[in-house]
């Protein structure tokens, strides 16, 4: 039986996102899709799906939801305070969501983008092979109160709920950077200063990219010798564009396909979720690695999924991990209210 996910309130910017629509670069259409692709991979692992499904991407905060048919849901990405009929839900885990229940997802406690993935997948109409909203070109719009998202039926709602310890990536940190075709436009001194600099994720940022602030500026010195200017070129997610003033922007999933600003390098795709999940004010820095190093340490998405699947474990907590056993309700995946805080402290 299929059903729908009803939005009673949207607190953050809620959009349907999947892995996007690659293959249309020559027509000026970027891949788009989820800002944290790893969160969709983790959801697929938790739900036992062979490939990532479309999810509700929740920027900044979630909302209030109801379903018309029982479905498991995976909650992944930026941890948000989630309650089902007032009962706290563990993040990075699967929960059964039944008709009549209210799911409330509050603001992100760390990171930016949380994901709600219904187990059967979202059944909204695809455009060019993807359900992903692409807001800047008018493909779908943010979900609002009163909207109902059609769902495919959960193939196995009675499957035991799973949880997953995820790679922390919600508070900034180090990003590995590989040289791009325009890196030589920057002097060795600028490249060295860039690698040494400590950046702060600025308030300016959206699905197209994020601005990074630092005390110093990092201009592309060689541009001055180009009398006819720099030809615009193909750009993509992860590219680090430098404005004329020398302020870097890391491009996001919904960036344009051609840009005129020089790019100092590109964030390794493996580190892009960390970049995009860094909330305003978080510290970020870059470590320049060679292409060979990048190819050697890169983990393809299929392998990420296989590894995440192996790390999934039952949502029930192992009693040996729990000091105060008496206060825990170990029945049916129900958890104690302060579970989330315990998770946070354990990190």
């Amino acid at each position, binding site marked *: 039986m299929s059903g729908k996910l009803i939005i009673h309130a949207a607190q953050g910017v809620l959009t349907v996102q999947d892995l996007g629509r690659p293959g249309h670069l020559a027509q000026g259409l970027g891949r788009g899709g989820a800002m944290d692709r790893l969160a969709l991979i983790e959801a697929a692992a938790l739900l036992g799906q062979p490939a990532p499904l479309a999810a509700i991407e929740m920027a900044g905060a979630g909302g209030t939801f109801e379903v018309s048919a029982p479905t498991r849901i995976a909650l992944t990405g930026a941890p948000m305070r989630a309650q089902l009929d007032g009962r706290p839900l563990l993040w990075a885990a699967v929960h059964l969501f039944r008709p009549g229940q209210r799911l409330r997802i509050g603001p992100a406690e760390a990171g930016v983008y949380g994901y709600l993935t219904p187990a059967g997948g979202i059944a909204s109409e695809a455009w060019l092979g993807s359900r992903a909203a692409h807001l800047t070109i008018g493909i779908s719009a943010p979900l609002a109160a009163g909207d109902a998202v059609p769902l495919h039926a959960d193939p196995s709602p009675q499957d035991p709920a799973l949880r997953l310890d995820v790679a922390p990536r919600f508070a900034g940190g180090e990003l590995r950077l590989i040289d791009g075709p325009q890196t030589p436009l920057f002097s060795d001194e600028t490249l060295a200063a860039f690698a040494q600099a400590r950046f702060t994720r600025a308030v300016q940022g959206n699905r197209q990219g994020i601005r990074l602030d630092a005390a110093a500026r990092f201009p592309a010195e060689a541009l001055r010798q180009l009398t006819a200017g720099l030809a615009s070129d193909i750009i993509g997610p*992860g590219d680090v564009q430098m404005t004329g003033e020398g302020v870097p922007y890391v491009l996001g999933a919904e960036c344009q396909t051609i840009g005129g600003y020089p790019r100092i390098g590109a964030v390794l795709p493996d580190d892009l979720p960390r970049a995009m999940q860094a909330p305003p004010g978080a510290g970020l820095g870059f470590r320049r690695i060679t292409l060979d190093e990048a190819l050697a340490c890169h983990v393809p998405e299929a392998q990420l999924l296989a590894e995440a699947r192996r790390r999934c474990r039952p949502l029930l907590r192992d009693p040996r991990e729990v000091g105060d056993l008496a206060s825990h309700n170990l029945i049916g995946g129900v958890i104690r209210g302060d579970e989330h805080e315990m998770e946070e402290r354990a990190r």
Partner: protein
Amino acid sequence: MDDAVPELTPEVLPAGLDGLLVRFHLSPHPAAIAAAQVMAARLQADPPPGTAEICPALVSVHLRIDPTADRAGLSVRLLAEARRVAMERPPLPGPVRRWTIPAAFGGADGPDLGRIAAAMGRSEDAALAELLEADLRVLAIGFAPGQPYLGLLPPGWNLPRLPQITPEVPAGAIVVALRQIVVFGAPSPTGWQQLGRTSFRSFLPAREPPMVLRAGDALRFVRVAPDALPAAEDGGGLGGALLERLA
């Protein structure tokens, strides 16, 4: 940027973990633009094994490659071809399709036309006549879906970008800078100067296909009175455009 032929510098460069860039020059010199067009056409006619996507840009061709492709072998092959193109300096490959697109110029539809003509030292009519005679080619599509970079106009059209950004030009605005024309698909801010407007929409999500132009297409504008422009929603948003297949 004049027509003096610069030394082309064909290079094949890594572009991320799944990309290679074939680039002929850093700046948009006409010879580099032509070489990139030729290179893209040759690659599209006979895609080398391991290429997932071929995307022409102004002075370069971006290739998305299969992660398991022989990167080094592919690079060697691409560099040999790029050097051949740079040496031969072949003319642009003949267009396969030609668009003729009605447009209104000047007045409210082209508020910068007077300033453009003055900068060129010509009358508005003389400047426009040259533009309408130009056999433009779609050099690249990008920034927004379907949005064409058209060129190259004759050297007199080497107009700079404006120092200040115009907050919004309407959908269908025809803007010019650097011997190139862009036709905006949606209301946009721009630093380019607007000389005309068309109701041709290069991108409409619900249309099949949504993006109608292809790199390499030939394109001419034909001048019509502003009130003779079809409504943007008529005829699939093609604005009265005529498409001829030439090959």
